[in-house]
């Protein structure tokens, strides 16, 4: 009996840990749902009468617009870079990922600065043609179409990444068969390559749409009222948690619908490679005029999405960054680093436990728990912050009250008044990032290694420490880095859950830019972009190893 008890305790420790992590991750969702039927003292009625229709319209148009834009840019560039031979191809296949390094709100600031009336572009036009304000029309970047353009530029790399990986995985055999059947290269693309890549493209696109729905900074700056900005304003300006939660519920409903559509679209579209022969693609050689056109087409997203904004921030930083601003940014940088590093470490730790538990105890409960833990990435930051605020305050109050009664001492605002609430918020949002990275790493470790370790006298816990941990080092580092960078540029959660007077780099840059003081924000923006390059490098490395190779050995991952 003693033995049996030990075995069961072992199982329960892992299962319970995994379940409690999942429970914590779902708190915001439950909190939001709790508010659905509540009375918001007329705020909700006020919202439905005034702005709700606008929110729905803007959010829908934005999502559709960004989808079209990122599909055009992402899929076409991926195909050209994978299939065609033209100068600059080698550099471009990685450079096309670069816009990912820039948070979309920085892209918006840069675009506005460049294209506004007093900006360099319009000034140049006026000086060349000796025009005045009334002589020409210029698109206004602070508009819905401007927001669509900016978000498409910033988010197309998700589609690019997904479609390029899919194109690379397709064996050349399939395409060559199509060519021998008398179908031309462009037709082959439309009739074979594209349909085969569709599941991956759908996945990349859904990520883009999810980011669009959650987008706060850029949309706010472009003065487009969407659900994400509405939630923030309802809470910050109108002070109604219930109405903000109700808006969040609407947004969550839309996201749920999206997820259902995506999984339905993907389950019908699962293809298995019928041929196990993988052949390197023979690149399609382009003649000079076509090659030049292709080069221009593929360069454009990189130039507009990365090179121009970064150059702008650099010039501004070198020209106008004063000593005092640098000092402040140094201090804020420290804040940001501490918060982001903590968030990265905690997320990696929690994700490792969740993923490992999923591996050794794949019971239905644990499977569901793992799914729930990764749900946060689909939920906009603002929604998470709104959903966490109530429960955290409640916990804080009750512990405070209890401690006061028992010990005559009260711990005060130890949750919402400190970084703890912030870290919890980041976990809910970014645990999925770490989780998917670590789960991918774990699947590369054969399950017989676990068995071998047990049979050689190690418990699951010690096996994790002695076998999986050393083998996973690369994945763990990647996971921590990705969460670190995501946290560093995060806006809505930080704005809502940060302790009083606590600022991060992203928050300060956002505030300065909102006050049209972009010169002062440029150093901070550059710092955010530079750290944002880290995950891009990781992604491009992952992309180059995802190519199938015939004789892969059990080499330890670096």
């Amino acid at each position, binding site marked *: 009996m003693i*033995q049996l008890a030990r075995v069961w305790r072992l199982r329960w420790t892992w299962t319970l840990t995994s379940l409690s992590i999942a429970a914590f991750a779902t708190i915001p969702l439950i909190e939001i749902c709790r508010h659905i039927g509540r009375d918001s003292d007329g705020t909700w009625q006020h919202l439905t009468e005034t702005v709700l229709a606008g929110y729905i319209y803007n959010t829908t148009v934005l999502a559709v617009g960004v989808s079209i834009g990122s599909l055009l840019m992402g899929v076409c560039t991926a195909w050209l870079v994978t299939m065609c031979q033209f100068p600059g191809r080698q550099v471009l296949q990685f450079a096309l990922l670069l816009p990912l390094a820039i948070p979309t709100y920085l892209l918006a600031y840069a675009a506005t600065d460049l294209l506004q009336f007093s900006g360099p572009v319009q000034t140049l036009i006026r000086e060349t043609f000796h025009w005045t304000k009334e002589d020409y029309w210029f698109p206004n970047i602070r508009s819905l179409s401007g927001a669509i353009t900016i978000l498409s530029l910033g988010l197309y790399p998700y589609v690019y990444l997904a479609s390029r990986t899919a194109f690379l995985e397709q064996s050349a055999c399939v395409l060559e068969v199509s060519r021998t059947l008398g179908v031309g290269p462009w037709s082959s693309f439309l009739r074979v390559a594209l349909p085969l890549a569709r599941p991956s493209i759908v996945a990349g696109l859904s990520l883009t749409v999810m980011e669009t729905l959650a987008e706060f900074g850029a949309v706010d700056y472009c003065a487009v009222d969407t659900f994400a900005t509405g939630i923030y304003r309802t809470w910050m300006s109108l002070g109604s948690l219930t109405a903000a939660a109700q808006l969040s519920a609407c947004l969550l409903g839309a996201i749920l619908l999206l997820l259902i559509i995506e999984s339905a679209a993907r389950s019908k579209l699962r293809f298995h490679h019928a041929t196990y022969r993988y052949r390197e693609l023979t690149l399609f050689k382009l003649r000079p005029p076509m090659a030049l056109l292709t080069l221009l087409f593929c360069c454009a997203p990189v130039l507009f999405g990365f090179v121009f904004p970064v150059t702008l921030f650099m010039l501004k930083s070198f020209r106008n960054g004063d000593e005092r601003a640098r000092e402040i940014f140094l201090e804020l940088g420290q804040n940001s680093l501490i918060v982001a590093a903590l968030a990265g470490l905690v997320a990696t730790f929690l994700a490792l436990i969740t993923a490992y538990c999923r591996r050794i105890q794949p019971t239905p409960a644990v499977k569901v728990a793992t799914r729930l833990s990764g749900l946060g990435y689909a939920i906009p930051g603002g929604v998470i912050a709104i959903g966490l605020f109530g429960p955290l305050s409640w916990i804080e109050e009750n512990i405070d009250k209890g401690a006061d009664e028992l010990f005559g001492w009260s711990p005060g605002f130890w949750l919402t008044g400190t970084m703890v609430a912030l870290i919890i918020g980041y976990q809910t949002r970014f645990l999925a990032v770490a989780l998917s990275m670590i789960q991918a790493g774990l699947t590369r470790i054969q399950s017989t290694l676990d068995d*071998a370790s047990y*049979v050689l006298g*190690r418990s699951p816990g010690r096996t994790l420490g002695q076998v999986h941990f*050393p*083998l996973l080092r690369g994945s763990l580092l990647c996971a921590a880095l990705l969460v670190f960078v995501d946290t560093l540029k995060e806006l809505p959660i930080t704005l809502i859950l940060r302790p009083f007077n606590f600022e991060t780099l992203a928050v300060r840059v956002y505030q300065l830019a909102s006050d049209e003081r972009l010169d002062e924000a440029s150093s901070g923006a550059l710092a955010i972009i530079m750290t944002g390059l880290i995950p891009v490098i990781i992604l491009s490395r992952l992309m180059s190893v995802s190519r199938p190779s015939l004789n892969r050995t*059990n080499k*330890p991952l670096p």
Partner: protein
Amino acid sequence: MNTLHNQLKISSISHSYGKLEAVRDVSLTIDPGIVHCLLGPSGSGKSTLLRVIAGLEQPVSGTVTIAGIDVNGPHLLEKPENRSVGFVFQDYALFPHLNVLRNVLYGMPGAKRSEQRKHAAQLLERVEMAGYESAMPHTLSGGQQQRVALARALARKPAVMLLDEPFSSLDARLRTEVRDTTLRVLREMNVATLLVTHDPREAMGSGDWISVIREGKLIQTAIPEDLYFRPVDQETAETFGTINRLPATQHEGDLLTPSGSINPDTLPCDSDGFLLIRPELLELHSPGNPVSSIWTSGVVVRVDQEGGTNLVTVQVKDKSRLYARCLAPTSWKPGNPVQIKINL
């Protein structure tokens, strides 16, 4: 640990994955120093049985006794890490981040580092891998990896060794060599060994005992010779090669077959009442030869070259065909009349 008690005993083990019954009521006893082969096609439940013995799966019912200690029972489940079991996996499962020595040291009990190292060196010597201590697993060949895996499994001085198709990924020439080394070491160390394989020739060549398993059930457990010449059913018989299958009926103490009668004491019938005779047991004679107790006669219709032997197909009285195996080269040609004698 008393090596006399290195015995593995499993009784009435059943296990299922959901609705799929993987193992049904299997009982086996393996004595110390004995290599017992578990032979069956893929999906027959043989690997599941190994995992149950090692404690990696919890069986639905039945008991496992290792070295006299119950490790699995109605109220008992010993964790795999506390069982005296060694396990060599099909893919060897060497830890890719540890070198050969540290792989071997991984499961080694004992307090003193120096003693552990000495023991590890002895084990590596034993499996003929001395000198490779600092090599990383991915630099070794398949055969070398297999031997390191064996040394690693032996490091805990297990009472029972479980081998899951350990030779299947080696090429044919290397396989015999590695197999001989492995089984010699295991016999020397007086370990009860259960070797799982789907290759009948491997089972014949390495097992002291062989159990045939199909669809989770043990069909027959016997020494190799009995399994070959006295299989319990046709499927088991055909696993090991060509066999003559004749309908037989009991008559006044004799077995009547279309070709003649046979004493049932010498060759039993299978479960369906058919007589199964290996081609090796049939002796061919020219009709003129004065041979006692001729069973039947017929005409050679075909001679197949098998290398060292020839398989001669003979058509007998009732148009049915019999197979006889004789040493090559043979003088039989299609069309020759022959007399057949059962040689026991």
